[in-house]
Structure formats: structure tokens, C-alpha cells
């Protein structure tokens, strides 16, 4: 690890005043220390924001929705009874993510911002990585890319977004509360927190330097009780998704889809909202035929590169299974 200065922020104004382009906020450390040990990230200053947990670490649910403090730990959200009851997709995503130890450490805001697991990004011995060295090329496009993305990729980067929680949250229309270094606040839909790779894959989010996620908001909708997260992976536990789907369904008594929400994970460059699938389902009776049609629509724009050619089909099957399971839920 390269040398850095460590500063502990006792409150939000102090954290903001210590932030900057050369600094990184330190919460759970599970992504940051990992990438610092690999010399992929090398901040000059770590701003320890764990003391801010008293301000930004609680979880509250009421009739207007769910508010998750950015510094709440993944395990705290996974154990929250209101989340298990009213937002099962969020709980499903959390308990299938990482390991018990990592969930005890990782903050929710940090988890949203976890970096890709692309091997070429994580290994500095490869020069060509447009994410690490802008303009150097992408070794993954012709390389070992079995886990990498097929949706939202560009000719400059096919890195995948590896997380689970953000996929459930993007399906449920979540937004993030931010504090800006000048002390003001703003709210951003989660769907636009992460940027398309395009020709600037090194710019991953729409956060300005020093901006801090203080909370995640999920609107209240009774039909979110009919929501789930299905994850397919090489290992049955403690592994990243090869494909995952977050579903929420508002079904009429006769089984017609009034509203559907579809998020996809392990398949895309960012937490992916499959609006084409949602549009295909609306007004249809949910069955194998309509689910398959929605899955086809979701992957119509998929782009594969050799090893990851299996992913659109795995993604479609995962989505069909998740839709049928959601329709069968007792709520």
C-alpha cells in the first residue's frame, strides 16, 4: 500500500472539509483497502467517516417509504424486520451478497459504489485498461471475460457492476441523498448514480469529488411486498452473480400485470433497470409466454465478447424464473 494520511471526521462538515479529489472516504473499507493493497487505488488521504454513523447510520420505514442511512451496515439492513416484510427484494439481495463478515463491515453507501471485479482492472500488471489508464485500451474485450457485462458496454470497456443491493434498489425506484462539499444537499435517482461507460469508463458515477451519500430512499408501495431477488452463480454461496434479477409486480386479481419493475445484475455495466421488459409485461397476464417475451426484450441490445456469450441466455432464463416466482409469491 502506498503511504496516505489518515484523518478521522467527527461530523459531516469536518468530513466535507477534509474531502477532495486526492482523498477517499473510508467506511467499511472492504472495497477501498482491497484496491489500495492491489495499488489500483492510491488516495493521498483517507477520511474516516465511521463517526458519522450516529448521523447517517439509522434505518427507518414508515408510510412514506424506507430510508437507509448510508453508513448503516449491510447486515443491519438484512436483519431489519420492516425490510424483510415490505421490501423482500432488498433483503434477498443483501443476504445473498458477500459473506457474513463482509456484511458486518460494508456500509450501504459504500456497497452501492463497489468497483468492478474485472480481472484486468484489478491487476496492474496489465497496461490496457481504460478504467485504470484512460486511453490505454481494453484487454478484457479479447481476453478472459466470462464474468463481464453484456448490457450497457462500449467498445472501450466491458466491465460489469458486481453488486446485488443496487440491483434491487434500482428496480424499486430508489434515490440517494447527497451532501455536497459546499454544505448543500441534493437527491439523485439511483438509476443515474452510475454512468454509462461510453468513451469515459474511468468516470464511473455522477458524484462530484467530495460528495457523500448520506441516505438511500425507497418509496413506499404496498405491492413491493411482491418483490424478490434471484441470483445465479458458480458457487451456491459467497460469490458474485453471473446473472441476477430483481422483480416487483403489481398484479390485478386476475393475474394481469398492472406494473412491473425489473432490475438485472451481473450482466450489465451498471445496476440495470430493464424498462423494455417492464413495458412488455404491462397489461399482460403473467405466464411463461409473457415472461419469455419480456426476457427477449430485456436482452435485445446485448453485446457479447467470446467467453461471455452464454450470458444473454442465462440472463433470460434467470429473469423468466424470477418473474414466475414473483407471480407465485403469497403476499
Amino acid at each position: 500500500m502506498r503511504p496516505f494520511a489518515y484523518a478521522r471526521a467527527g461530523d459531516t462538515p469536518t468530513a466535507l472539509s477534509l474531502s477532495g479529489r486526492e482523498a477517499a472516504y473510508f467506511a467499511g473499507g472492504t472495497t477501498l483497502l482491497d484496491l489500495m493493497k492491489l495499488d489500483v487505488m492510491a488516495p493521498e488521504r483517507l477520511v474516516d467517516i465511521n463517526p458519522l454513523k450516529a448521523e447517517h447510520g439509522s434505518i427507518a420505514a414508515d408510510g412514506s417509504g424506507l430510508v437507509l442511512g448510508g453508513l448503516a451496515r449491510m447486515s443491519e439492513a438484512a436483519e431489519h424486520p420492516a425490510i424483510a416484510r415490505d421490501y423482500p427484494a432488498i433483503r434477498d439481495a443483501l443476504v445473498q451478497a458477500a459473506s457474513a463478515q463482509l456484511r458486518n463491515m460494508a456500509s450501504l453507501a459504500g456497497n452501492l459504489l463497489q468497483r468492478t471485479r474485472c480481472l484486468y482492472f484489478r491487476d496492474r500488471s496489465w497496461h490496457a485498461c481504460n478504467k485504470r489508464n484512460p486511453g490505454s485500451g481494453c484487454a478484457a474485450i479479447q481476453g478472459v471475460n466470462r464474468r463481464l457485462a453484456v448490457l450497457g458496454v462500449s467498445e472501450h470497456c466491458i466491465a460489469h457492476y458486481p453488486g446485488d443491493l443496487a440491483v434491487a434498489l434500482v428496480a424499486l425506484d430508489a434515490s440517494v441523498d447527497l451532501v455536497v462539499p459546499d454544505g448543500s444537499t441534493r437527491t439523485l435517482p439511483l438509476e443515474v448514480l452510475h454512468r454509462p461507460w461510453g468513451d469515459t469508463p474511468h468516470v464511473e458515477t455522477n458524484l462530484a469529488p467530495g460528495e457523500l451519500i448520506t441516505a438511500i430512499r425507497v418509496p413506499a408501495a404496498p405491492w413491493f411486498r411482491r418483490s424478490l431477488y434471484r441470483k445465479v452463480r458458480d458457487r451456491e454461496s459467497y460469490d458474485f452473480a453471473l446473472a441476477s434479477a430483481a422483480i416487483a409486480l403489481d398484479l390485478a386479481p386476475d393475474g394481469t400485470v398492472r406494473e412491473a419493475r425489473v432490475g438485472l445484475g451481473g450482466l450489465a455495466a451498471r445496476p440495470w433497470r430493464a424498462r423494455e421488459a417492464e413495458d412488455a409485461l404491462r397489461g399482460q397476464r403473467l405466464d411463461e409466454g409473457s415472461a419469455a417475451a419480456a426476457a427477449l426484450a430485456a436482452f435485445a441490445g446485448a453485446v457479447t465478447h467470446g467467453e461471455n456469450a452464454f450470458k444473454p441466455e442465462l440472463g433470460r432464463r434467470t429473469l423468466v424464473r424470477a418473474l414466475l416466482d414473483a407471480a407465485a409469491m403469497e403476499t
Partner: protein
Amino acid sequence: MHTTMQTILRINGREARLDHDPRITLLDALRERLGLTGTKKGCDQGQCGACTVLIDGRRVLSCFCLVAAVEGEVTTIEGLSGEDGPLHPMQQVFLDRDAYQCGYCTPGQIMSAIACVTEGHAGSPDEIREYMSGNLCRCAAYPKIVEAVQQAAPLLIGRAP
């Protein structure tokens, strides 16, 4: 190593004052500075679980903890039983069930297993497998580890770690 800061850690009921570089992890401090080599370094990348310790009773990976940021009481494998006292029930059951081969992952397995029980996630073999999945065993002693956790679970009721 250039020393730039000082931190007081609480480990196994004692205080340890460390002058240290900001880069040092809890894992390296335990092993290299405090002589507590029971906690093992496996991958040092948060993937294997060998370095698992408890902080205020919750299991964490000490390779991803910066000493500077540690808050709370750290419990390592050395803190589970007194010098000549009886073993902690989870240690004793791991011995009795032969729940290891080479033993390198065992301290992490035992610390994680204690938390698995106290969290209430040791209700069935399936649940134990899921909630112990963050601790890898290259000898694949998994079946006996699951049996050990299941057998030790009732012995931990009402007991501090």
C-alpha cells in the same frame, strides 16, 4: 516503517498502545506487533476468512480493518479461554469432531462459528453452510465443521464470547 500516529486498542480484555504507520491493518498489528499469531493471514484480500476476529461480538475480517479506525473490544482466538483454563466450547467441539485437517483456517472458522451461533444462524446444516460460507477450508473439512457448529450451538447459550 515511519511512525506517524498512536492508537490504543482493546484486545482480549487488555489495552495495547501502538505507535504505527496509518497503513497497518489489525491483522498485521495482531501478528507482527502484539505477538497474537493465532489469527491467520490467508489471502489478505478479504476472500478467505482466515483472519476473522470479533469486534464487540460481531465477526469481521481483520485484514480489512485499519488499526487507526478500530473501535470497540477485539476478541481473537487467544481471548476465548484463559492460559490454563478449559477451552471455549466451540474450540473443544472442533477438537472432539476433528473439524480440520491442516488447521490453518481453524482460528478463523472458530471465531466465525461463535458469531454464527450468537447471531442465531446455526438453526440447520443448510443455514450453517450459508452463514459460514465466508470461511474457506482448503482441506475441505466442511462436513465436520458444520457438525461441530451444530453440536456446539446449544453450549453457547447465555455465554459471552
